[in-house]
Structures are given as structure tokens and as C-alpha cells.
């Protein structure tokens, strides 16, 4: 790995930036269960798993880009769009379509480039500053982080986490143990039957509209965002809901009671369907709403 980086650095000194947009169409043999490391500052990266034991990169390098590093060392493959170190010229984004062996693990890093991953079965780690991230299929595990980009994970039955600062997180049809957090972005969980879900925000809103597995667990915590939990009428769960100064609306059971005669706090503990799963919702000042769907 270090050797690859050193080689890259040496090449960077001698390389000349691409003065026009340049087509890329390259392939390298790769381990069926190796790790593919991808780096692209701006533009887009679309990664798809396939049944061949090779990595294929197609697309375009933006004007001003220095080169594409594409190499394999052991079971690691590197795909990196390299920009000039000291360029004062505008560098266009690069758009890459990358096919990887389906069993690969991924490590993807972008600044503003959007990332889309599908049909990859290994563990995937995706990081962006302002780019959006979308993941489909069933990776073994996912870990997606972005500062201001939005994250959308669809139909993953795997465990994973999605973290943003201001971007939104959408977990659609997920079934594994998942965790999502954001400071001011909104968190949405929709569809599927979840086993363990942890949702945390500071000011972002939380929306959960899915089923809970038997003995599943849902934790939703926010300081000032709102929490909306839409659960099937047949949900069997124990609920523990509290807010320091927000409001609690409950369509699934009893009305919340005040925690003190003088303070604004409210709390609610009850069970539906004989209990089983556990739902914990807490806010400082945000409202909490429990709805039957």
C-alpha cells in the first residue's frame, strides 16, 4: 500500500494535467473477495458488483485532472483520480463507472462527487464531504458518512450506520441492525421490518415508518427535532417516551402524563399487544408523535 502511494507521488511530480476531458476504459484482474479503494474528488462514482474477477473502470476524467491511478497490490485494488498538487486552474469533475467483483469490500472517499453502490456483497465504507451517497443491494455491512450530502440506503438486510452533519439520511426497506445520526439533517426509516434501530439527532427530525421485529428495539433521541413513529396496528411492544419540554401525541395508547406539577415535562410508558419489542423515544424540546398505520 505504501509502495503504491510512493509510486503515485513519484508519478505526480512528472505528470502533466489532462488539458481536455479524457475517456477511461481500463481493466485489472482482482481478487473475488478483495478490497477496492476508490478516491474521486468531484464528479460521480458509480460502483456495481459483477461476477467477474476483475475491476473495470470506464468514464471520463475531467479537464485539468492529472491522471487516473489504477493498480492492484495483493488483494487491494486502487482507483484514484489524481489532481495536480499546485494547480490554480479549475479542475472539472470526473465521472467513473466501476465494476468490481461482487464479493469485494469497498472503501470510497470523495469530496463533492456523488457515490452510488449496488450489488456489492462485501463490507462497504463510504465517506464524502458534500457528495450524496446511495447504496442498494445487500452488502455485508455498510458505513456511510457525509457532512452535507444526503445518504440513501435501500433494501439492505445488513447491519450498518449512516452519519451526516446536515445531510438527510433515508433508510428504505432496511432489515438489519442500523444506526443513523445527524446534527441537523433529517433521519427517515421507511418500510421493512427492523430488528434494532438507533436514531439520533440534535435538531434534525426523525421519522420511523416501518415494522419492528419481535423483540426488536427502536431508540430515537433528539434534542430539538421532532420524532414521528408510525407503527403497524399489530405492533407488540413496550414503549418508553419522555420529553423535557416538548409535546407527546399518542395514537397507540394512553395520553402522556406530566412528570411534574410545575414543569413542562411529559412521559409515557405503556405496552401494546402484550409487549415484546422495545421502543424508546426521548427529546429535550422536540415533539414526539406515535401513530398507528
Amino acid at each position, binding site marked *: 500500500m505504501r509502495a503504491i502511494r510512493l509510486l503515485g507521488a513519484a508519478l505526480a511530480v512528472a505528470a502533466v494535467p489532462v488539458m481536455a476531458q479524457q475517456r477511461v476504459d481500463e481493466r485489472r484482474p482482482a481478487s473475488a473477495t478483495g478490497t477496492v479503494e476508490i478516491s474521486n474528488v468531484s464528479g460521480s462514482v458509480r460502483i456495481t458488483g459483477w461476477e467477474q474477477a476483475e475491476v473495470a473502470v470506464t468514464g471520463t476524467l475531467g479537464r485539468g485532472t492529472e491522471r487516473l491511478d489504477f493498480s492492484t497490490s495483493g488483494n487491494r485494488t486502487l482507483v484514484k483520480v489524481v489532481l495536480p498538487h499546485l494547480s490554480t486552474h479549475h479542475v472539472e469533475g470526473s465521472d467513473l463507472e466501476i465494476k468490481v467483483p461482487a464479493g469485494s469490500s469497498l472503501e470510497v472517499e470523495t469530496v463533492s462527487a456523488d457515490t452510488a453502490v449496488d450489488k456489492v456483497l462485501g463490507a462497504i465504507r463510504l465517506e464524502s464531504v*458534500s457528495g450524496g451517497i446511495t447504496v442498494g443491494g445487500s452488502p455485508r455491512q455498510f458505513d456511510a458518512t457525509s457532512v452535507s450530502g444526503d445518504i440513501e440506503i435501500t433494501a439492505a438486510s445488513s447491519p450498518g450506520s449512516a452519519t451526516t*452533519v446536515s445531510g438527510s439520511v433515508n433508510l428504505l426497506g432496511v432489515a438489519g441492525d442500523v444506526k443513523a*445520526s445527524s446534527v*441537523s439533517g433529517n433521519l427517515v426509516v421507511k418500510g421493512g421490518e427492523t430488528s434494532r434501530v438507533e436514531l439520533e439527532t*440534535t435538531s434534525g427530525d426523525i421519522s420511523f415508518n416501518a415494522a419492528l421485529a419481535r423483540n426488536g428495539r427502536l431508540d430515537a433521541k433528539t*434534542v430539538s427535532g421532532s420524532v414521528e413513529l408510525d407503527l403497524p396496528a399489530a405492533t407488540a411492544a413496550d414503549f418508553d417516551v*419522555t420529553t423535557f*419540554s416538548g409535546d407527546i401525541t399518542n395514537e397507540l395508547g394512553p395520553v402522556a402524563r406530566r412528570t411534574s406539577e410545575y414543569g413542562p*415535562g411529559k412521559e409515557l410508558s405503556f405496552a401494546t399487544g402484550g409487549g415484546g419489542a422495545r421502543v424508546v423515544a426521548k427529546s429535550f424540546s422536540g415533539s414526539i408523535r406515535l401513530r398507528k398505520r
Partner: protein
Amino acid sequence: MKCDDVDALLDEFVDGTLPDGDRVEVARHLGSCGRCRTAEARTRALLAAARALPRGVEPSRDLWPAIAARIQRARVTHGEFGLARARWRRTVLAAAAAVAAAIALVAVLAVGRHKPGGAPPQAGLATPPGATAASLGLARAQATYEAARVQLLAALEARRGTLSPETLEVVEKNVRIIDRAVEEMQAALARDPGNRDIPGLLVTAYQQEIDLLRRVATLPGRG
């Protein structure tokens, strides 16, 4: 009852606040599962460690003037030692990881351990007079949070030139959101020191800010 179920209930079991039915089930599972017994022992050890913390630690109510002063000191220190950026970043990350781990540990103690009306702690784990695991845990979390925050804000300063103005704006705006939330919750806790939910939310806010700032130190630059 499966291991995951026991794991979810272990804190309350160790605290002695679990309802009888669940307590019996957990105890039965522990009797036959070595992995969960190890987890139970670890939880008890954490509780004992929290009780051994200095009792004089008080959560500060107004952190920011002191933090601002420390940020200045941290910048001076950075300059004096002349660390290369990469080394500085590694140093900050190592420190941040350590304190973030400390926050995570005390979070276990600060959350859900202060339940009015709950059963008393089990024999042999008596809490010192005037101090609860929750209050000690929160005080420790605040101290580690302050230390981590100072280092990471200095790291943010060091990276200012490598991040886009838009990203910096997002980071700073969200740091302010968390700071405001922390201030509001600290003020509320001062008015209602027995509140059992605010400490958990405070620790969550601390962790979010540490995670945010730590991530800034590792963000890819503009290239």
C-alpha cells in the same frame, strides 16, 4: 432469552432496576452463557470504576470562556512544537479517539442509571454518599468532552485552508447548533438536577460534537 436480549437489559439488571420477570430470565441466561457473564462482569466493573472517580468533580455550568482560553493555548502549543500537519492530525485523532472512548464509557453510566423509584443498587456496590454513578459519569463526560473539544477545534483551525467555504460554513453552523443545545440542556439541568433524561441527551450531544469535529480532522481536502 437470547444474547442480544440480555445485552439490551444488562444495564438495568446490574442496576437492580429490572422487573422481576425479566430479571429471572436474564439470570437464567447468565447461568448458561459465558459470553454474557463476561459482559455482566464488564458492566459491573464499569459501575465500580465510576464510583471510584473523585467525588469533588462538579459539572461546570458555563464552559465556554474557559474553552476559548484553552483553544488559544492549544494553538500556541501547536505552533511551538512545529508539528507537520499530518503528524498534528494523527496526534489530534489519537487524543480524540481516547476521549471519545472515555465519553462512550461514561455514557453507559450516565444514561439510564438514575431512576427514581427504582430498586437500590445490589449489595456490595454501595454508592458513596452524595454521589451517584449518573452524576459522576456525567461530570466525567463533561470533562472529557471539554478536553476533546478544545483539541478538535484547534484541528479545525489547522484545516481551515484546506476545506471549502461551504463545508466550513456547514461545520461551524452545526457546531453552533450543538453548542446551543448543550447550553439549553445544561441550564435545564441546573434548574432540575434530578432529571433522569437530560444527562443521556447531553452525552449524546457531546458525542455528536466530538464526532463532527473529529471527522473534520480526517475529511479529504479540496485536492
